[in-house]
């Protein structure tokens, strides 16, 4: 299975103005590659949640997207500060986002849950004070 890097973007902390640009570019790219719209929809929702997570919760990071004949893989890696309690963070409705974030319509505590729901496979590497790396896969 040969995979190819099709998108690589740096995501800045707190950059709400550009929030979603990377996922939007991904959606357009996958459309051009002829990926079925239901798969495109699932992977771009996952990418958007990951992108907003980096903007809201991290010190900054990057998103890379790989494609092979069998799957699309999004890798979101940041430089910290890590998820304090992953078990809690995975519970629907749990969020550490502040009021400013909630006023923008985020911080509903559905992000990681959404990522799991729309992906066929998710791997989360994190810990207090550690960088976080989330790998999400949608099978083709």
């Amino acid at each position, binding site marked *: 299975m040969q995979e190819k890097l099709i998108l690589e973007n740096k995501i800045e902390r707190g950059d*709400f*103005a550009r*929030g*979603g640009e990377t*996922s*939007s570019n991904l*959606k357009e790219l996958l459309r051009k590659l002829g990926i079925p*719209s239901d798969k495109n*929809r699932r992977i*771009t*929702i996952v990418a*958007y*949640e990951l992108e*907003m997570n980096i903007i809201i919760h991290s010190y900054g990071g990057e998103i890379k997207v790989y494609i092979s004949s069998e799957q699309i893989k999004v890798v979101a890696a940041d430089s910290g500060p890590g998820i304090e309690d992953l078990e809690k963070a995975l519970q*629907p409705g749990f969020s550490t986002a502040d009021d400013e974030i909630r006023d*923008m*319509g*985020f*911080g*509903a*505590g*559905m*992000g990681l*849950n*959404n990522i799991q*729901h729309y992906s066929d496979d998710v791997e989360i590497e994190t810990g207090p004070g550690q960088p976080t790396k989330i790998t999400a896969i949608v099978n083709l």
Partner: protein
Amino acid sequence: MKFAEIIPLLQLEPLVVIDDPDYEIETACGCDLMSDVLAFSQEKTLLLTGLTNPQVIRTAEMTDIRFIIFVRGKRPQEETIALAREKGINLYMSPKPMFECCGLLYKAGLNSENIRQI
């Protein structure tokens, strides 16, 4: 129901018009939480919201929602309108509050979405 029927019902003012008003709307979702929209929304859904920032357009783009109505007369920021135009998403504004908009649509026969269990 056709979107054209919704225009007089909610006294809609057009902000960005892309699709023909004969576009068939199957369900509606009234929501200010974008993560909930990302969690539950389906295509062919009409989104009613009181949020006016560009992330509303991004959320619609990712979920393939084509129509957004801003409730209680909230006019979105210029950058929100520009992004909708760029992404081909229809924007309308209603002077009515969220509760009334949803009630009128429900009474007119529009259904809510099938919400997945979490």
